[in-house]
């Protein structure tokens, strides 16, 4: 994605986009957490954790480097095969396939994302305040 078809990047659009990217990341981690422990009767049907992928979005006009989430990627981790014949979803041999979600890793992901979101808000506030000061000083 290029910036040429849009307005030139400013500090405001830069932080807005970065904040949206963090939201995508946090939503992905939340989906993973929500699907932790979900069970399927086939290996293909089991939920695989998703991750947001970030990419740099360089705006040559302003020299600012924004960030964009270029999509979601599904992890290749194999689901956990568990022997549980009494489970209603168990297959012929009595196995169920549990989604391979690492709940601790997802919690860490959410916390990191929240921290970075916070940082962006703070940077935006400071930048806005300085701009206002510059305007008022005339």
């Amino acid at each position: 994605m290029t910036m040429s078809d849009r307005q030139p990047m400013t500090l405001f659009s830069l932080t807005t986009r970065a904040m949206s990217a963090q939201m995508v990341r946090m939503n992905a981690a939340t989906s993973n957490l929500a699907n932790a422990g979900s069970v399927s009767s086939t290996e293909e049907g089991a939920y695989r954790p998703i991750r947001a992928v970030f990419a740099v979005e360089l705006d040559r006009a302003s020299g600012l480097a924004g960030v964009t989430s270029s999509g979601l990627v599904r992890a290749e981790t194999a689901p956990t095969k568990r022997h549980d014949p009494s489970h209603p979803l168990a297959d012929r041999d009595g196995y169920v396939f549990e989604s391979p979600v690492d709940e601790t890793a997802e919690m860490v992901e959410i916390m990191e994302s929240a921290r970075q979101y916070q940082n962006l808000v703070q940077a935006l506030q400071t930048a806005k305040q300085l701009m206002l000061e510059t305007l008022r000083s005339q």
Partner: protein
Amino acid sequence: MNERLFGIHGAALTLRSQRMGVIASNIANAATPGYKARDIDFNAALDARLARAHGASSASPDAGMVWRRPTMPSLDGNTVELNREQVAFAENAVAYSATLSFVQGKVNTITRALKGE
């Protein structure tokens, strides 16, 4: 004109605002794999800017751009360290404010001289 009136503070204010953008870019890309954090070496950039203003065409426009050296490089090649960026951002914001008040003071002086107070 600008330079006679404000000394180095005119150029400094522009640079400070540019540096704010560069550091904000670093903060925005804290989680982008492979992103290399940048910064502006303020002294070098200011020298280059003043040299350009004095007619030396050899000074390149992106003089003073430096790559950050990470204390502990991460595995995905990203060199942003949020704590450092935060401190740099705060320091730059304070310096911007200071420069701004220098400019403001100059403007006040001139205004008073013009009014003949």
